[in-house]
């Protein structure tokens, strides 16, 4: 088993690692209504949200897997993707998993392991979709309740799969990597800081083992995750930007078409003021075939890379990223532009020009 059947990108990790040393992410939900401090009110709103987001019931393994296949990559639509991932997770309930690899071969159930890893990967991608749905400054009660419920549901689904694959983790590096990814991704929001710290430590241990064991697994996802962790942490807490960059470079070699890796490595270079390397990597990112990426990932990544190009005074390059992004948006109008709207007294919109100042144009 060389890689998970689904191309697990790990965009969730870049989100996760931006706030490794942040204050409690769960504090970011809610509204200024004092009602939010009332547990009964919160419980009521969450119950309403759970009812509101309930997916249509799907019976039978084949129908559930079909629903999963149809919607599990729809990152621009958290409702559809949520139901698709839920259907895939429910389908696994009907799929047995051998507890050791030899028995898996003997019983022709290697595919079952791959399917479990694939659906777990989809759950992890969904954490990323949810994390991107939280507002920075303000969340209304309806939306914060909805996101909370979705987050907890995704946790429950992921943990159920992890419990099934736990016995094979010592033998299957890919499973270990996904456990690490779960520990990082699931604690970005709705998690007390001490729990997030413990999850990160556990993830680091798994990633070190995975890199030693099988560096090429999942196209260098271990190096991507651990590299980002080491770049983000301060040196006095074990951070090591230079080793982090080495790992990210390995990830880029193993997976040169993944713009998420480009983003992480360009930012790491910029943090070390290695601007020439950053610019060269941006140029390489421009050559990546858009068809290789999920549409939502592509427009998000190119927006971010264009911004990094601007920070590096590479206006032409920024324009090229923007053109590519606009092209993709034009052909896929369902994709989210992530245009922020004024919130809590001010927003991205320039009051004098009326333009969204994040528009790379």
């Amino acid at each position: 088993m060389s890689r998970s059947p689904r191309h697990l990108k790990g965009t969730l990790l870049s989100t996760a690692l931006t706030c490794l040393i942040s204050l409690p992410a769960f504090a970011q939900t809610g509204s200024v209504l004092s009602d939010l401090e009332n547990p009964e009110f919160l419980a009521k709103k969450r119950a309403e949200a759970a009812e509101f987001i309930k997916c249509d019931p799907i019976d039978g393994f084949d129908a559930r897997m079909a629903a999963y296949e149809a919607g599990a990559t729809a990152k621009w639509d958290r409702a559809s993707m949520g139901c698709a991932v839920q259907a895939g997770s429910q389908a696994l309930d009907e799929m047995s998993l051998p507890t050791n690899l030899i028995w898996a071969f003997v019983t022709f159930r290697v595919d079952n392991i791959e399917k479990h890893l694939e659906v777990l990967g989809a759950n992890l991608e969904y954490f990323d979709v949810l994390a991107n749905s939280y507002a920075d400054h303000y969340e209304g009660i309806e939306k914060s309740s909805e996101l909370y419920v979705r987050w907890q549901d995704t946790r429950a689904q992921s943990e159920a799969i992890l419990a099934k694959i736990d016995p094979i983790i010592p033998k299957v590096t890919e499973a270990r990597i996904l456990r690490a990814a779960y520990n990082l991704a699931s604690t970005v929001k709705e998690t007390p800081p001490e729990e997030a710290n413990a999850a990160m430590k556990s993830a680091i241990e798994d990633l070190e083992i995975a890199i030693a064991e099988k560096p090429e697994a999942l196209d260098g996802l271990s190096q991507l995750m651990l590299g980002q962790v080491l770049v983000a942490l301060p040196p006095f807490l074990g951070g090591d930007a230079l080793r982090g960059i080495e790992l990210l470079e390995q990830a880029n070699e193993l997976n040169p078409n993944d713009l998420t890796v480009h983003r992480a490595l360009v930012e790491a270079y910029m943090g070390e003021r290695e601007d020439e390397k950053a610019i060269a990597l941006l140029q390489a990112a421009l050559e990546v075939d858009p068809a290789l990426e999920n549409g939502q990932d592509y427009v998000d990544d190119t927006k971010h890379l264009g911004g990094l190009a601007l920070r590096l005074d590479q206006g032409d390059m920024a324009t090229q990223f923007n053109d590519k992004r606009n092209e993709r948006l034009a052909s896929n109008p369902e994709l989210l532009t992530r245009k922020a709207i004024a919130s809590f007294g001010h927003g991205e919109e320039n009051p004098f020009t009326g333009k969204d100042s994040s528009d790379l144009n």
Partner: protein
Amino acid sequence: MTTKLALSSILCTTILGSAAYAADITVPSGDEIQKYVDQAQPGDTILVEPGVYKQSVYIDKPNITIRGLRDGDNWAVMDGELIRNDGIITSGHSSTIDGFFVKAYKGNGIMTQGANNFTISNNYVEGAFYGIFPQYGINGLITGNTVSGAEDAGVYVGMSDNVDVFENIAFGNVMGLEFENTRNGLMANNHVYGNSAGITLTLIPGLPVKDANNLVIRDNLIEDNNIENFAPASSIASQVPRGIGIGIVGPDKTTIENNEIKNNGTAGILVADQTLFGMSTDPKNDPYSDEAIIMANTFSGNGEDMTGILGDLIKQAGASGLDVVALGKGRGSCLANPDEVASLGTDRWETCDPSLSAAEMKTAMIPGGAEEPVYTAEQKGRLTYLAVCTGCHTYDSVLHGPSMQSIQALYKDNADGMIEYISEPVRKREDFPEMPPQAYLGEENLNAIADYILNELGG
């Protein structure tokens, strides 16, 4: 060049014209201030007699001074009664707001919007979300004020340039004084105590102004900033670490000099990258705090009662009693007398050269003042929407009031109906509080806001 000359002549004409007709207008105790503001001409001074004024005031013309008269303990009191959003707002250039006691507003105590050459002086502001809040202003002076009880910053200089903050007292706020996304600022001789964090210099992502730099914090007394952070959980201010004397998060070229910084429980000074607060990155921001100069300060008793995540981080590193904590990837910073300052994370810092001193800097303001552009109605509409409406409404979800999307749907093709409602609201929905009347904004602004909301604001 032609444009500049033309602008200068307009400015001269305006100023001369104003001087010729300047008048003092007195508001009798308890009367409606807005009525007198509406009658005032540029250059006039509005004198507000001591008394209680349960109202909001909006000034949208240039060169108006509004002054609260004081008789001992009897102030001109602006009282928001916790139902009004804003105390005094001005969008007029060369405004002076002086001598008021402003209390119990939900949003802004005193605010300027896009107003250049402003002065905010000798006010006592208590219990707003933002106490004194100049936004998008160039060239301003904030002096002699006392600010307390702000759920965000007591004095919050946002997206502005060339601002002096002198001789103010800030206590009991989440942040005492703040320069946010501001260029060229000087805070000097302020007393900042008993806040969650004393002074913050920040670069916040997602705002139209994308940088913050050249900020000098000098000769201040910054002590005992340890109170519980009481910002609403949804607000970014809720993530400000408690127990910090001065926090630098994102800006470049900052100078912290000759301050007395003592008894701040987590650390005296924190220098960190923008990502510290868990904010998403803005592709157009440089998130690193570069070129911090920390010299000639007096430190004592800092870092002895560390709390929160930052405290945990410091504890994990086995440290305590820190005067300076540096996190992140900033470059080009320096610390004077490093052996005498308890610090963490400053291994790559240089020792400051004495020539970097800002001790002789007298002001950050522009000699002769800033230009005073005339804003279009459309621009005023946007500014007012951002400053006033978003205190209670967001675009796509419920805050205090319904979402702007639902309001757009309700008043589609009916701007007049919307203006009528804004001016004299009545409770429409049982599950929402009644909206406070916004008639004080005036017909022109209400038209501009309605046009903006119904025709421009979008997702």
